[in-house]
């Protein structure tokens, strides 16, 4: 009964859906995972998220919640017992939300920009931007963690989840472009954090295998390139 009360609509490759997996794991909430096919979205998904028609969606007591950051905060508030996902102090919550916004609106946009950059020069510029962003986040990590393992301190929390969900796709970008982005020399704090994050109990069993993700990404990008070649000219 407990399992059917909480449903998550997601895909195994979606970093945003991964956030929900991890957060529910932190709270030890039992849930049913519904693997969506984004090429053939389920009726449940279309009804639960009619505006954006995207994953993830959390369905709790038959009520859908959309947008991964709204879902993370909902999980923290609907299951208020420890461990908490967000800090308790309003100022530290504000700091966590600020960096979550930076990661989602700026850094992740730059990461996506690597895939869409055309030509060697544009690719290099896009990769440099991603790296520069990580340097900025490295500084934030130092201030937030205060010498501890995670952004949130001794245990993973909001900001760890928000950034950590992208580690698989960061690996994909590194392999596909034959570069190092998460550089142990330039970002020692984040490099160490990444290893610990992936080993965390709430993460290790739900994080997609990064080589499987790479195979999937290669397949998707190949299909996209083919579609582009075959597409009629855009007058």
């Amino acid at each position, binding site marked *: 009964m407990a399992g059917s009360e909480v449903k998550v609509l997601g895909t195994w490759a979606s970093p945003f859906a991964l956030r929900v997996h991890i957060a529910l794991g932190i709270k030890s909430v039992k849930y049913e995972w519904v693997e969506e096919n984004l090429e053939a979205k389920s009726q449940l998904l279309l009804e639960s998220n009619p505006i954006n028609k995207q994953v993830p969606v959390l369905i709790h007591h038959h*009520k859908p919640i959309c947008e991964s950051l709204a879902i993370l905060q*909902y999980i923290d508030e609907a299951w208020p017992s420890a461990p908490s996902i967000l800090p308790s102090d309003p100022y530290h919550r504000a700091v966590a939300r600020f960096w979550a916004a930076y990661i989602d609106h700026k850094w992740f946009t730059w990461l996506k920009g690597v895939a869409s950059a055309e030509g060697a020069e544009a690719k290099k510029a896009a990769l440099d931007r991603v790296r520069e962003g990580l340097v900025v986040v490295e500084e934030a990590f130092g201030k937030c963690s205060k010498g501890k393992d995670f952004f949130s301190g001794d245990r993973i929390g909001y900001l760890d989840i928000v950034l950590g969900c992208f580690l698989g796709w960061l690996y994909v970008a590194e392999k596909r472009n034959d570069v190092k982005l998460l550089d142990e020399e330039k970002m020692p704090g984040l490099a160490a954090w990444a290893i610990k994050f992936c080993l965390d109990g709430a993460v290790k069993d739900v994080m997609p295998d990064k080589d499987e993700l790479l195979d999937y990404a290669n397949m998707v990008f190949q299909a996209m390139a083919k579609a582009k070649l075959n597409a009629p000219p855009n007058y």
Partner: protein
Amino acid sequence: MGEEVKLFRSWSSPFALRIVWALEIKGIEYEAVFEDLSNKSPLLLQYNPVHKKVPILVHNGRPIAESFVILEYIDETWKQVPLLPKDPYERAMARFWAKFCEDKVLTSIWSAFIKQGKEQEEALVAAAENLKFLEKEMKGKKFFGGERIGYVDLVLGWLANLVSIFEEIIGLKIVDEEKFPLLYSWMQDFAEAPIIRDNWPPRDKMIVKFQALLDAAIASSSSSSSSSK
């Protein structure tokens, strides 16, 4: 030690205006620091080195940037006249709608204003689709927050003032009263609420500013466009 609350803003920023409204609604005493965004102060750059923008709230010496983040901080720090609902599901809905308003509504309406030709047509279509969702959400409610102004109203509030300015400048209707009656009446109710009404930036100055932005956008697009675009 007394509370020290400073708000770095500009005379026209709609994002900073959200914070003005929130502080005023809660009756929080603050000092407004007006920035000239073409000549940013060292203090602004020190308090918001990442984005170098307004608004910035400085509370007892600690700066917070990004208007959504500031709004939630204000609501969590000063509990009177709550902006977000208490119930976790209702709060999640408010956060969803706020993101929708920012990512979709604001983006499409801004594009409808600043772009020309086919891009403008497409933006107007997108804006209308987004406004339809808002219209639906407004059913049975005076404000998005219910009986009184709340978080989503503050996030969307720029619509109640800027849309008529945009419409006047480009000579096109963006929020048609017939197509979006509930949204239209929300715009009136919101704009005329005492705290909101008393804080709008001067309309004539706004028209000059946005006309200049549009002129600059047209100039730069015509100088860089080629015939095949």
